[in-house]
């Protein structure tokens, strides 16, 4: 065999800051997590108090409007967490809400709805944006979930996003062709809203999804909010449905309507009036009014539902989901 003294060639690199990942450091933090089947049921307030710290890198799955941890995001705002770094992929309104609430100062961009508030925060330098895309952010989480420090991707090259990211263009050491590599992401905490979980954290998600499994394995701390708590016997009855294993999970919160005002596919439809209200708040620069009404003026989710939503509305949302596709959303 010929000796190879080739140096890996970096052809170009982005100049964006990124959370530097050392897979062995992630392994060390994973080593600390308990392996026993331990009950992790707790309330939403306690879960956010215990597992979301100021300065954490935060990811969530899908978004505030679609099978996302909307309740958990409201609780983060209510507890006035600060200096979070957001993984802002495939998300409609959560970035604008968290940013205007003063909870974050850095955002890795995939997709979110922008508006006057985010433009203002960007221009004032109060929130710094690093440019990626939905698929590239997912690849970063995938690398983080594989326990490696980077992953090659077939997109992102040649864009201006690349220039303002942590990506590099290298000469592929195998083919010699140029290829983009993106840095792995190991978030501090992931928020994942699921259809069913047991009290240990074995979690079922019905339907298509973005990157629940990647986020769960890549993150140091995982908070599961669940529409339904099911028995471990039920989990064992159909193990193929388990997407996230209990040992990755730190907290399990029973949170019916945890995706409200969004849809939880197969369980309830979105509250279209509320969806319109939150979009209008972002486009018309009235996010503070929205937060006053839906977050700060109520003490918790139950309070919000009883004061501002009502049982009639919740029944209607469930009924609308029953009329549409239930196929595939139950075992």
């Amino acid at each position, binding site marked *: 065999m010929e000796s190879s003294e080739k140096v890996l060639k970096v052809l170009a690199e982005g100049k964006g800051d990124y959370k530097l990942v050392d897979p062995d450091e992630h392994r060390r933090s994973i080593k600390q997590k308990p392996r026993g089947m331990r009950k992790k049921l707790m309330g939403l307030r306690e879960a956010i108090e215990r597992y979301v710290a100021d300065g954490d890198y935060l990811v969530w799955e899908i978004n505030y409007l679609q099978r996302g941890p909307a309740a958990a995001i409201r609780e983060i705002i209510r507890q006035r967490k600060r200096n979070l770094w957001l993984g802002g992929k495939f998300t409609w309104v959560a970035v604008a809400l968290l940013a205007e609430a003063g909870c974050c100062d850095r955002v890795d961009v995939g*997709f979110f*709805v922008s508006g006057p508030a985010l*433009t203002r925060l960007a221009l004032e330098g109060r929130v710094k944006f690093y*440019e990626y895309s939905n698929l590239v952010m997912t690849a970063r989480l995938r690398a983080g979930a594989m326990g490696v420090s980077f992953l090659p991707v077939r997109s992102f090259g*040649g*864009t201006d996003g690349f220039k303002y990211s942590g990506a590099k*263009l290298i000469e592929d050491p195998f083919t010699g062709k140029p290829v983009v590599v993106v840095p792995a992401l190991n978030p501090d905490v992931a928020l994942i809203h699921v259809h069913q979980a047991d009290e240990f954290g074995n979690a079922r998600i019905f339907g298509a*999804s973005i990157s629940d499994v990647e986020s769960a394995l890549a993150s140091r701390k995982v908070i599961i909010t669940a529409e339904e708590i099911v028995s471990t016997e039920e989990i064992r009855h159909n193990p193929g449905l388990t997407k996230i294993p209990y040992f990755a999970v730190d907290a399990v919160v029973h949170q019916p309507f945890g995706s409200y005002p969004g849809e939880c596919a197969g369980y309830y*439809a*979105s509250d279209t009036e509320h969806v319109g209200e939150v979009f209008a708040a972002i486009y018309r620069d009235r996010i503070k009014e929205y937060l006053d009404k839906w977050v700060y003026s109520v003490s918790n989710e139950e309070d919000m539902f009883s004061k501002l939503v009502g049982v009639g509305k919740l029944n209607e949302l469930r009924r609308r989901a029953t009329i549409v596709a239930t196929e595939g959303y139950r075992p």
Partner: protein
Amino acid sequence: MSLPKLHGIGEGPWRGEERASAFAEREFQVCIAARMVEDGSTYWVAGGGGPMYSVLMAKRLYAPDVVYVTEDGLVGAEPLLPFDPVMTLAAARPAYRALMWTTMSGIGDQSGVGYLDYGVLNTLQVDPYGNVNSTWLGSYPSEGRRMNGPGGADTIASVCRRLVLMTDHQRRKFVERVDFISSPGYLDGSPRARELAGLPEDTGPYAVITNWAVFDFEAESRRLRLRAIAPFVTVEQVLGEMGFRPIVPAPDEIQVLDPPTERELTILRTEMDVRGQFTDAAPDWVVWEDNQWKMVKREPQKGAGPGFI
């Protein structure tokens, strides 16, 4: 010299149908894009608006054997229409009767190895080489407006074999240089620019469809080229609303597009854009009057809003 044929422009089943006598410009754009969908192909469609309506309309009327995927992990859905506002992805109605539910990585893998033929995207700004901006308007990052970011568009533009872009026909949309390349076209237009940036070979922009015109990309220069215009505008009007001059073929090589049919509009208005949130966002309306097409301004409709798809 004859130009390569563009599928769906010219003869087609729509010619035998009853012609609409009044329509919104964006309705016209969706109908044109639907006719250009190539049956028997796979599509990766942006989540909502014109791209999704076009492919759904094509499946109903002209291209039943098209299978489309979306970045939320859906393969081959037969969605329950209409959607609730904003619920065009990651929701039960769009996911209905799919062939497969996977994840974003799953779709990424399918596209990465080359199973997805066409990508269809909306764009905020486009340049002569089909580069797309959806990140920032103005001088990044110190002056201007923060926009939404590429979402899945960066990957759709990178790995699908042919990229179809949709945009409003306005001077501010067609710019010599986009303010920010969020999703790649032919980059600086030089040979192999995409491959040298790490993108797969044999990919790139294929067509741009607006409410006034259809463009393709000239093979040698990779620059935007006018191919067809709406029956209610002239070539001069089309060029007058662009911030750069595309390649313009001889007048007899520029085709005139057929107006929407009643059947196309019925599907669009009753099953897709039922709230008018996509098509009513642009105020221009086209009517057949005194034996010619006329453009008239309308009052914006109640409920119309930017980006609320």
